[in-house]
Structure formats: C-alpha cells, structure tokens
C-alpha cells in the first residue's frame, strides 16, 4: 500500500471491478472486505490521478521583434531596475499569452495545510544566445494582468546556453478564497470556483530567440 494522507491509501495491484450489470454480484450477497478495499483503493486512485491538462499554444515563433514589450502602451511603462521580475515585461498581448479560467483543487498537503495544486509550464523554445531569452509564468485570480500585488503565484527563468530546449517552470499557487460561480440553471445552483488564469510571457534580446509551443498542466 502507498502512503496515506488526504489522497487516501491505494493498493499496488491492478484494480478493476465488475458491476451489477453482470451476474457475479447478486442481490442479497454481502460485501467482502477484499472487494471493499478494492473499491476504496480505486476511488482514492482516481482522486490521485484526477490532474488535468490545462492549456496549449503554438508559436508565436520569433520573439525578438517584441523586445520592446512596452512600446506604444499608454497604461504601462518600463522600469529601470524593476523591483519585481513581473515588471520586466508588460504582459501585453504581443509578449505574453493567457490561459483560463481554471478551477484548481486544493489537495496538495503542506505543513501549512492543504494548498492548491502547482502548475507546470513547458516552453519549447530556441535560445539565440546564452541568457538572451527570459520566460515568465504567473497566475492571477481573474483576468487582470499579473502585477506584484495581484499575482497569486509566479516564477521566471533566464535560459542559459544556446539552441533548442524544452524548458519547464513549476509554479506554486498561494492560498486564495474561491469565487462563486453558477453551476446549473433552474433551480439555480452555485459552487466555489478558483477562477485562475495562467500567464506566460517572454523577453528576448537576440534575433534568434524563438518560442515554438507552450503547454500548461497541473502537478502536485
């Protein structure tokens, strides 16, 4: 058996049960402990494996032309020696992409209690020169652009070396209060929803820098 915890214990064996549609389970039979363990283990296993793929993007290809990410913007300006990596890019559409909204599950146990699952982003890119391409990942609750005081998770990486690489950034999400969203109509039902948007941005200083694809998924 594997470790207990919020995700429950699971058996090491394969686990498939036949159902009432067959003639194996009959009315009036009692449930044996072995079957109960398998059922319990299956449900725990499904909870463990319930992680979702969240988003994808192709391109945009060459990114050097977008180095002036603040160009023409009236509501953002580039800062010299920005106090946060989040301010090194404008998060405008030419230099970033945005996925969501997603509902993450808080089944990652830490010493501070249960927190939301982490988000992993894979970026297939080409580094024209060492340290020329910087990738940024951030999360917000709601569609507003990530700022130091509105982000609920962020990370960045300056990519050393040259050539093609599939780099990965894993981002922890700070505790949030879920918003309420409609879950059905007539009778109306509401439920908690994390409303999480995931942002990916880049900053390039070499003409050969390129981004070919972006993938976003949940991890613990």
């Amino acid at each position, binding site marked *: 058996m594997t470790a207990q915890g919020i995700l429950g214990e699971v058996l090491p064996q394969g686990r498939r049960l036949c159902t*009432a549609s067959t003639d*194996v389970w009959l*009315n009036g039979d009692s449930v*044996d402990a072995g079957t109960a363990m398998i059922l319990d283990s299956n449900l725990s296993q499904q909870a463990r494996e319930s992680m979702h793929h969240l988003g994808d993007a192709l391109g945009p290809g060459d990114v050097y032309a977008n180095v002036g990410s603040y160009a023409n913007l009236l509501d953002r300006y580039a800062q010299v020696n920005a106090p946060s990596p989040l301010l090194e890019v404008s998060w405008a*559409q030419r230099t970033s992409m945005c996925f969501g909204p997603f*509902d993450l*599950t808080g089944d990652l146990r830490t010493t501070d209690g249960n927190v939301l699952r982490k988000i992993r982003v894979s970026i297939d890119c080409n580094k024209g020169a060492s340290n020329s391409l910087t990738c940024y990942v951030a999360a917000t609750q709601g569609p507003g652009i990530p700022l130091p005081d509105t982000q609920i998770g962020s990370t960045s990486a300056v990519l050393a070396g040259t050539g093609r690489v599939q780099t990965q950034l894993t981002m922890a999400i700070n505790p949030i209060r879920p918003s309420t969203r409609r879950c059905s109509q007539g009778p109306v039902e509401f*439920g908690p929803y994390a409303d999480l948007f995931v942002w990916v941005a880049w900053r390039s200083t070499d003409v050969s820098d390129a981004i070919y694809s972006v*993938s976003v998924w949940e991890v613990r």
Partner: protein
Amino acid sequence: MPTPAPLLPQESSLDRMLVRRPVSSRHGARWASQIAYLLGRHTHRVCSCALQVLSTRTAAARPAKVAYCRSPDVRLALLMIELRFDKLTSGGGSVIYADGFRVTVGVTLPTGATWVDQGPPEALLDGATAILLPSPLLSGRKWLTGIIDVTGCSATTVSDLTVTITGVGTDTHEGIGTVTLVEMPRGSLAPELGGDAGLQIAWPDPRNWLEEGPAVTGPRGMSACLDLERLASEQLRWWWQLIGYEEATPGTDTWARASTAMGAIDWRQGLGTTVSPRFRTRARSLYGTSAGMAVEIRVRYYATGGGTVRVIATPIGGAASNLDVICAAGAGWQVATLATTIPATGTDQEFRIEVEAKATSGTLYLSQVAIRQTEACVVAATGLLAEDGGTLLAEDGSSLATE
C-alpha cells in the same frame, strides 16, 4: 437531501477493512462523498488554446472548432474567447491611434447544447453584433464570455463547438486569442431527483448487502457504488487539445502538409515548417503505469487525396510511439479518430507530443488535434484479495496482479 460535492478528496485507510471481517457501513458514506467529489469537482477542462496571430490581417471569417464531450454530472460549461488587438496606425509624427475596428464573433454550440447566457448585448456571441477590438495602446485583455447549458450533450459522442471571427465591413482582425471551454464544477449532486449520478451520503445499508437495480439513477446500494466507481473512471476525461483555423476552402491560414513523406506540418503564422513544435503533459494512470492511458485521438482534416496524421507520444526518458490516424480522401472537412494508449511510464508520468503528417496525394489540411482519455472498464472477474492481503485473485484463484 442532495450530497454536497466536497472541495477535497476524502481520506481513507485500508487497514480498517480486514479480510474475512465485516466492513463497517461508515465506509459507504465516505465512498458516496468521494464519488460526489470526483463527479462534481473533476468535470472536463476541455480546452484552453491560444490560437496563433494571423500573419496578415483580414476581414474574412476565420472559424476554429473545439471538440467537446460532456462529463456525467455537469450542467453548465463556460466559454471564454479572448480578442486580439485592434490595428495600430501612425498618424504622422509621434501620433498613433487605434483604428477602432469591429468584428463579429459567432458561436455554434455542440450538438444538444443551448445558451444560458450568450453574452451582454454589446458583445453577443451571435455572429451579428459588432464588437470593438481592444486597443493595442492598453495592456489589458478583452474577453467575451458565454455560459452554455450542456445537459443535452452526449457524454459518449464528441461534437464540435465552432467559434468564428469576422471583420465588420472592411474592418480587419488578426484572428482569435485564447479559446477556453471548461465545465463548471457542481456544488452538490442530487441523485434522488434522477438527474445526477451521485450517491446520497445517508445511503449505506448497514448490512452492506448488494442490491440490484438501475443503479446510476439513484441510491441503490452497493451496486450503485460499483457502477459509479466505474462511471468516474470511464467518463471523467483528461483532455489535450490543439486548435487552429479551419477555412471553408483551405488557404494560407490553415495548417497543411503537401508532401507524401511523413514530416513537419506547415504550422503557418511565424512557424512554418522550420520546426515541429513539441508539447508536454502528464498521463493519467488509473490501472498502473504499465497499462497506459487509453485515449482517442481525433483530428479534423481536409484531404482530397487522403493522408495520415501522426501523433508522436514519447514518455520522458522512454521510447517514442508513432500513433497514426488514417485520413480518408474527401472533398470537405472531415473527422478521423484513432483509439490507442499512451504510456504513463515517463518521469513523473510526463510525455512529449509532436504532430506530423503526410498526404497520399495533394495537400492534407489540419485544423484540430484532440486527445481525449477513453478509459474503459474491462470486466475480468470478481475481485478478491488473498488471505495474506497481498494478491488480487480471480474467482478461480488465478492472480490478477498484472491486469
């Protein structure tokens, strides 16, 4: 009373269930709760795909299609569409301005779906309302939102949702931004009303007796529990989806492969054929990593001479598998599928995805690649544990450990 769908999985300890001893009915309450959690909270994250920026602005219609299949207990789905920026014009000197171009955005729902909210009057997703593109002078995004009633959609057959962006008059656009289609989680399930599959927490029969019947329609004892466990494993899908533009007559904005040799697709819009982009994600493993993740690969294509779309799935640290979807010849957009498995043996169960293609003759165009988990229950035999608790046995005593 409806069963609340918990926000978190329910903890359990298997050592409370001893072989050859009665099982406490309290476990039934936990199973009901865990099933409500799975069915209510793990609805489908169908697609969130950032479409490419068109190389050239156009006023023409540019549709994109999202594959969709409902999860068992979902009621509503949320559709979010990000608009791309307006055109920026230099007025001479340092004066620049946004042109104030407008577009219409039309959405054709999947089979069986109806609108609950098609958007506010100024941004209706009806294909007729003129919507102002966001200014490139501002950093904020502009999202269009729709809420869809999906209770009438099939939970087993995939159909497409179509998003079409068109310029108003001669106003041009550069395509759609991100398209997100996610199902809304449930706050509670009410199986007693007949519409939901979940169990009532108050259900457990203290004798833990089996009870036959149309289990999924209501709280009908252990048989319902077994049915719903299977339902949760079979119909709560993992999705991976890549969408592009699907021009009615394929042109230079639609992905294409004109060679009879398998190779990189022309991904257009700044990518071309210079690279074959690599995606990465994590495979689910419900029945052990050796079993792999059962999936259906679905592609939308246009190939008058036919061809093949190849998904190359490579577990991290492992060997690549070529998963070929055969595309029959035809004059029009069609769907081809392949049922297969993807190994979950990679580091952290992660694997890499590449998509290549070849045309039998002429050109093969592609607008969608969707990979959808299709876990199916293989009924082998009654599952029993040996007395030592370590081996799963079939009724005839043979080991099911590798099943």
